């Protein structure tokens, strides 16, 4: 086997593959800003705002109305891992290096949010106010905390609830 030719082919193949992958990733990971840190912070802010709205709806006795917010959480959760490419830790980011050291756990945590939000949504669609209230009571810890605790540097001050 002529190794030189194989190497040439390997280089060619890798470049093409990477170009293809790069194009594909490009359309799914960025929100147009090209900055994964900014994009994921924007996503998380919206997650927080929807979660805040869920809580206020339940408080107002309107538990069945949370379906739309829960669905938002479920869909946003699907996007999380794509906003944490290798090497995207920056000064602005609150992400911990543990994310990449324990990637399967990070992935599982995102999936956990997706699943729990889906359950909440289904309970709301079924108009089961009692189930919704029960889920919401521990949702913060079970769906958000399970990821934030190991993988995010806690904010030093508690900012006001995100409005959007």
């Amino acid at each position, binding site marked *: 086997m*002529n190794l030189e030719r194989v190497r040439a082919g390997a280089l060619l193949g890798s470049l093409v593959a990477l170009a293809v992958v790069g194009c594909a990733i490009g359309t799914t990971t960025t929100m147009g800003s090209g900055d994964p840190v900014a994009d994921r912070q924007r996503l998380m802010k919206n997650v927080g705002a929807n979660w805040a709205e869920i809580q206020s709806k339940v408080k107002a006795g309107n538990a069945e109305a949370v379906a739309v917010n829960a669905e938002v959480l479920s869909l946003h959760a699907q996007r999380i891992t794509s906003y944490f490419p290798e090497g995207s830790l920056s000064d602005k980011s609150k992400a911990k290096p543990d994310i990449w050291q324990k990637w399967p756990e990070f992935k599982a945590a995102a999936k956990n949010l997706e699943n729990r939000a889906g359950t909440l949504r289904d309970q709301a669609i079924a108009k089961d106010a009692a189930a919704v209230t029960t889920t919401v009571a521990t949702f913060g810890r079970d769906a958000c905390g399970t990821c934030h605790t190991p993988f995010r540097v806690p904010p030093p001050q508690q900012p006001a609830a995100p*409005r959007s």
Partner: protein
Amino acid sequence: MKIRHVKTGIVLGSLIALALASSATGQSMTKLWTSDAVADRQRLMKLNGASWADAQAKLKAGSIEAIAVNAETLALTSTQIPALFPEGSLTDKSKAKPEIWQKWAEFEAAAKNMGVQAEKLRDAARSKDQAATEAVAKEFGRQACGTCHQPFRVPPPQPQQPPAPPQQLQPR
């Protein structure tokens, strides 16, 4: 044969590159073109409808600032639209028109426009200005959604029954 060696190299190189790329992004390659793009985008669009309906209900109730979260959700989902329409994803279940791929630049622009309109709505709501929010909301359906649905979607044949409140999403 020399070509054979090169080809082997190409295959090997591609596989290695792809493996490295997917581990770097932490994503399995099958996620990039989702296995059921039609179902995924219909789910996304349903959420868009529910978000917009919710926003209209809030507007009616005078809850102006609360609209911002719906608008931001719409802005965020709009960025996901083009990726949900990979080439060759037209199926019986899909209401997408072939024009999407014939006029891809226009389609992308329409998705981007949805984001721009949604951000406009969001910013008006954040400012708590009722008149400004109402002005944007008045045109929003046609400007943010209609401008894409018009050329690129086959309209539903039945008026949706019964009128669905915002929370009527299909369980997965």
